[in-house]
């Protein structure tokens, strides 16, 4: 497991030939160029080949593709799965070993599947009828195993059927079978953990990314002979095998977050659990690793970076496990639409297989909605946290996370805040996510003028105790209006939150005191929607 060391060179530093460009912007341009070249001069395959070389040819290629992942430059890469394999250590840096390593992994899965699915009888190798009959109570009985397997499969299948229900791809029967088989094999290979809900949503994006790369490969190889490495690595025949290898390596880090094994949380030396005055509910009793983790994020990182927010959440008694378990377990899979999620995963994986960046993305997400949170009561806060609002620019969130972790070596991102009609959250509970996401792109930007007064208004409404029912917007206020317009309003750090937010037109031209990336901001105007860094 290697941890990339960015201490001397921050990860956002551009490669020589890309100096002065917004990485995303640069990517769009390159795509466009490529598109026109395709039709005119180059064949599809040549551009395909070029992209491959660009990513993996350089002698110091691994550090470069890590930077590419962190900077969001794999967004439309046709080799994202290969990059992920490198990040997750499925492939080693030494390219001469790629093919052999791949074959080893595939053979391993072949064997695992043979043992657990294809022919469990042979695996057990027992034919003693005293033990192996349908009525046997023997733990090791094949029949007993058969019934257990059936139960496990039913449980997995139940979640597989509910995986990304809005995507046609995951409705295909063979895709569902693949997901089920992989999760089943993983559970059987990891008897202590077995299958836990949420694993299916860590696996699904991996399966999807491999599929996309296979499609691109098949398309490109129609016109020319691909290299031996491409042929082996991107062979659709081994889709399931490769997904298993990537998933199990990802799970090496994620496993504790799914574990229900409880242990006493170590408190300070002199603190006895029972004697903590004003102990919060999350402080008492033994705890599972995921709860310890999210508590630590809130109690240490949030406190450090935004003490006001920290105190607000504590005052409302919002335990981080209420919203944070899903954030962490699914690596934010429900918080962002898939295309953005993959960019987040690019960065998380590229940064380190230890997924160390998760904690900081977590904090950056809280900070993004901090004004709205602080202006809200218990119920509205829960709405915001559990149905996280659409985020305008995923890249700036990642920049923020990097900056929070290591402010010395990362540029300070422009502060950006979620501003929104909070009434929406006050009157609605669930179902926000789907609706807002569906229309994210077309959301109008008209909220800026309202927002500051709303926030002030909201502040007055903060209930002193959690769950207070005071000051909530009118009853039955059916929200028929458009989904919340999503408008990240730029606000320099020094600006007090109460002053009027800049209007749209200002937004584009307003100089930002601390922006190192002003050129990026301007460039981003050509993107489909205003994006602020």
């Amino acid at each position, binding site marked *: 497991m290697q941890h990339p060391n960015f201490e001397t060179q921050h990860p956002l530093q551009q490669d020589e030939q890309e100096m002065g460009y917004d990485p995303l912007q640069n990517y769009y341009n390159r795509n466009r160029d490529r598109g026109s070249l395709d039709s005119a001069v180059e064949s599809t395959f040549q551009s395909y080949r070029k992209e491959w070389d660009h990513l993996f040819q350089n002698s110091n290629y691994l550090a470069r593709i890590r930077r590419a992942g962190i900077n969001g430059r794999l967004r439309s890469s046709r080799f994202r799965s290969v990059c992920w394999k490198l990040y997750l250590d499925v492939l080693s840096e030494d390219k001469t070993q790629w093919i052999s390593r791949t074959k080893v992994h595939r053979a391993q899965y072949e064997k695992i599947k043979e043992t657990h699915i294809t022919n469990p009888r042979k695996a057990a190798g027992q034919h003693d009828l005293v033990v192996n009959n349908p009525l046997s109570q023997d733990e090791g009985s094949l029949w007993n195993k058969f019934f257990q397997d059936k139960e496990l499969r039913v*449980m997995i299948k*139940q*979640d597989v059927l*509910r*995986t*990304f*229900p*809005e995507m046609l791809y995951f409705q295909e029967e063979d895709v569902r079978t693949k997901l089920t088989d992989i999760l089943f094999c993983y559970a059987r290979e990891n008897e202590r953990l077995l299958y*836990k*809900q*949420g694993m*299916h*949503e860590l696996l699904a994006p991996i399966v999807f990314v491999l599929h996309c790369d296979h499609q691109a490969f098949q398309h490109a190889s129609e016109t020319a002979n691909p290299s031996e490495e491409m042929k082996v690595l991107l062979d659709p025949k081994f889709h399931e095998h490769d997904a298993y290898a990537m998933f199990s390596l990802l799970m090496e880090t994620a496993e504790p977050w799914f574990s*229900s094994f*409880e242990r006493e949380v170590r408190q300070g030396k002199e603190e006895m659990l029972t004697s903590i005055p004003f102990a919060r*509910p*999350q402080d*008492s*009793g*033994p*705890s*599972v690793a995921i*709860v310890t983790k999210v508590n630590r994020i809130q109690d240490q990182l949030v406190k450090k970076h935004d003490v006001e927010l920290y105190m607000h959440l504590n005052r409302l*008694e919002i*335990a981080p*496990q*209420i*919203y944070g*378990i*899903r954030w962490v*377990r*699914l690596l934010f899979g*429900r918080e962002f639409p898939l295309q953005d999620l993959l960019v987040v995963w690019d960065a998380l994986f590229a940064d380190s297989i230890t997924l160390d960046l998760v904690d900081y993305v977590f904090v950056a997400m809280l900070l993004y909605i901090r004004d709205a949170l602080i202006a809200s009561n218990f*119920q509205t806060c*829960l*709405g915001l946290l*559990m149905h996280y609002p659409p985020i305008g620019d995923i890249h700036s969130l990642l920049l923020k996370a990097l900056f929070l972790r290591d402010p010395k070596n990362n540029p300070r991102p422009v502060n950006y805040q979620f501003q929104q009609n909070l009434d929406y959250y006050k*009157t*609605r*509970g*669930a*179902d926000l996510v789907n609706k807002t996401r569906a229309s994210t792109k077309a959301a109008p930007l008209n909220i800026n003028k309202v927002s500051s007064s709303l926030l002030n208004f909201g502040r007055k409404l903060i209930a002193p105790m959690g*769950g*207070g*029912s005071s000051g*909530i*917007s*009118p*009853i*039955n206020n059916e929200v028929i209006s458009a989904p919340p317009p999503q408008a990240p309003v730029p606000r320099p750090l020094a600006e007090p939150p109460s002053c009027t937010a800049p209007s749209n037109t200002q937004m584009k031209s307003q100089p930002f005191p601390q922006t190192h990336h002003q050129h990026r901001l301007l460039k981003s105007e050509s993107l489909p929607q205003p994006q602020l860094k």
Partner: protein
Amino acid sequence: MQNNRKEHLYKILVIGDLGVGKTSIIKRYVHQTYSTNYRATIGVDFALKVLNWDSETVRLQLWDIAGQERFGNMTRVYYREAMGAFIVFDVTRPTTFEAVSKWKEDLDSKLTLSNGQSIATVLLANKCDQKRDFLTNNSLKMDQYCKENGFVGWFETSARENININEAANFLVKHIIASENDILKSVVPDTISPQLNSDKEMTCSYWLSLD
């Protein structure tokens, strides 16, 4: 918005094993929709429902707790300050019914009202539009089961067909209000008015267990 209506806010838990339809029940109740496409709940989710209750406003905070979270200490934080609960099982899968008593035990061991009573809990036999082959056919046995296990009542429900969801919720809210009054007044039990019977209908049966 500052009308003088009295407001109540109640936190209600919706618990039960994996895939019994907790999320579907909530979506049906809150948004009047049904889909087979809900994702598995991870951790916990929540939704709000506002009711006009006589001359008062009742806000329900429905906490949808993932089926796999009934282990160890995790649920303690989710249960906090809840005033009522639905425990849901799937009538087509007997194992989900077996889990009902485990959920009830977990709930009662971690949460009681200030007077020491357990919170009002209603049992929902969900997916009643589908074929089933076990005890919910026998409503006497179900009544008995509820009595023995401290449920205030049970309903056969279907989120898909919208059967009994509102009825069950109204029933639970009545019990919550009753037990709240009970606590506030600290009076002898059995003061709950029999008007509860006013909406007695369908296949549900219930009684008061606030003794």
